[in-house]
């Protein structure tokens, strides 16, 4: 269950970022100038357990910020957010991996980052390796694998985390068609298992196919919400 009530997120982007002490001291007397970026404005959102929610919108409309708020990585500027259950995000390629370590070591590191215990990773280990198709490369260093293989590994580990909430932020584009099918199959099984999924994508076909409900963001505001067909039609008509 995810609930947002009147959530605002404002980023302050200083015109000249101060990151050293000297800059802080020399600028303490000057007027602070910064750009206020309203990443999200008055978002109200309720996602039931077991719901598959899609979020669409142009670049910079606040989709990723919304996911980061769900993941509790960012704190809202105002408003309240309650998230019931562990959140597992799909990470983009490279984040969370250590290139110098073997595939096996990486499974344990990545799994731990996503909140699994050692016991849980051991139980899922064979499944992860089989699902990612890396049986022959278990002891190879990660840096020697192709980027497609790395994406598959990351996806497989994330899928195996039995967290009630999954965040998917446009990460599947790198895999080949076979793997994408596998991913979409596993989405189906998530739905059956009653897991909540928040899906951000520019692949409107996938959004239409899987989502129960879609939210359209524009400049941080939710301008439409409802069943996928209607919202996507509105979104498409806007683009023209």
């Amino acid at each position, binding site marked *: 269950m995810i609930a947002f009530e009147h959530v605002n997120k404002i980023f302050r982007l200083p015109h000249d970022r101060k990151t*050293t002490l000297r800059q802080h001291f020399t600028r303490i007397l000057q007027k602070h100038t910064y750009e206020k970026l309203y990443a999200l404005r008055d978002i109200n959102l309720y996602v039931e357990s077991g719901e598959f929610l899609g979020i669409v919108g142009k670049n910079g409309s606040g989709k990723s910020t919304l996911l980061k708020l769900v993941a509790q*990585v960012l704190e809202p500027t105002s408003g309240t957010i309650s998230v019931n259950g562990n959140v597992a995000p799909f990470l983009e390629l490279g984040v969370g991996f250590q290139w*110098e370590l073997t595939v096996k070591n990486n499974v344990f590191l990545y799994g731990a980052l996503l909140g699994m215990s050692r016991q849980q990773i051991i139980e899922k280990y064979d499944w992860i390796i089989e699902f990612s198709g890396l049986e022959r490369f278990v002891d190879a260093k990660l840096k020697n694998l192709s980027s497609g293989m790395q994406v598959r590994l990351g996806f497989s580990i994330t899928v195996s985390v039995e967290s009630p909430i999954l965040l998917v932020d446009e990460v599947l584009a790198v895999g080949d068609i076979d793997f994408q099918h596998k991913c979409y199959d596993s989405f189906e099984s998530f739905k059956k*298992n009653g897991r909540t999924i928040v899906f951000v994508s520019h692949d409107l076909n996938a959004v239409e196919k899987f989502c129960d409900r879609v939210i359209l963001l524009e400049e941080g505001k939710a301008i439409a919400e409802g069943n996928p067909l209607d919202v996507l039609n509105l979104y498409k008509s806007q683009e023209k």
Partner: protein
Amino acid sequence: MSLYTETCKQDISLGRKNYIYLTLVMAITDFKIKYDNSVLGYLWSLLKPLLMFGTLYLVFSVFVRWDVENYKLYLLLGIILWNFLAEVTLNSMVFLEGKAPILKKIYFPRWIIVIACSLTALLTLLLNMIVFFIFFVISGAQFSIGIFMLALYLLELYVLVVGLALFLSALFPKFRDVHHIWEVFVQLGFWITPIVYPISIVPAKYHSLIFLNPAARIIQGCRQALIGPTGEFLAFKNHIIIISFAVCFFAIGLGLFNKLSRSFAEDL
């Protein structure tokens, strides 16, 4: 093959209890990576303090001569303990920066990073202590009850150093020059603290100033416990002073860290 044996509703609290495992994995990973691509591997964690010891020993036993009993052991122990302090405090900031991409994506308590870093350094410290005890046996020194005292001192040192590391790494994302400033402090501290030289060469009026530094108290205490001669730093009072410092540092460090770490994802 079916992945889910049961629905995940029962797993609602999953993850929250696994922070200890995450800390350990991070620490071990860090240790592995550090020495992975080098020929001598883990030996480097031993060689570094030994090389430093060799150089300083050469200078201060050939060119300058202190009147210290068992100077070899005296110097080596000082270097090992100071290196631990330097490694934890400086690396925790580096480590935090390296983990920035993950911090921006996944939530876990941020102190895990600092603790993981301290565990890596602790492992190095323990390996170094083994080397120290090899020297200890070779030089014919006698084991005494002081070895238990050593454990207490190391615990105090650990709390103190983690407190410092929390404090510094809390400030680091907003003020990057904390790292540079601290590097200078560590260098300065190495020479202000009686590590290379005996405290007896310092005029007595400066002693109270030098021992304002709790790390200097710990180092002197460890030496008196292991190498001798016994002295004031083994007294109960010394522990009280060190523990008060350590607990204060830790509380302030943790408080600041908890406050500032909330915006790490934006600052880093």
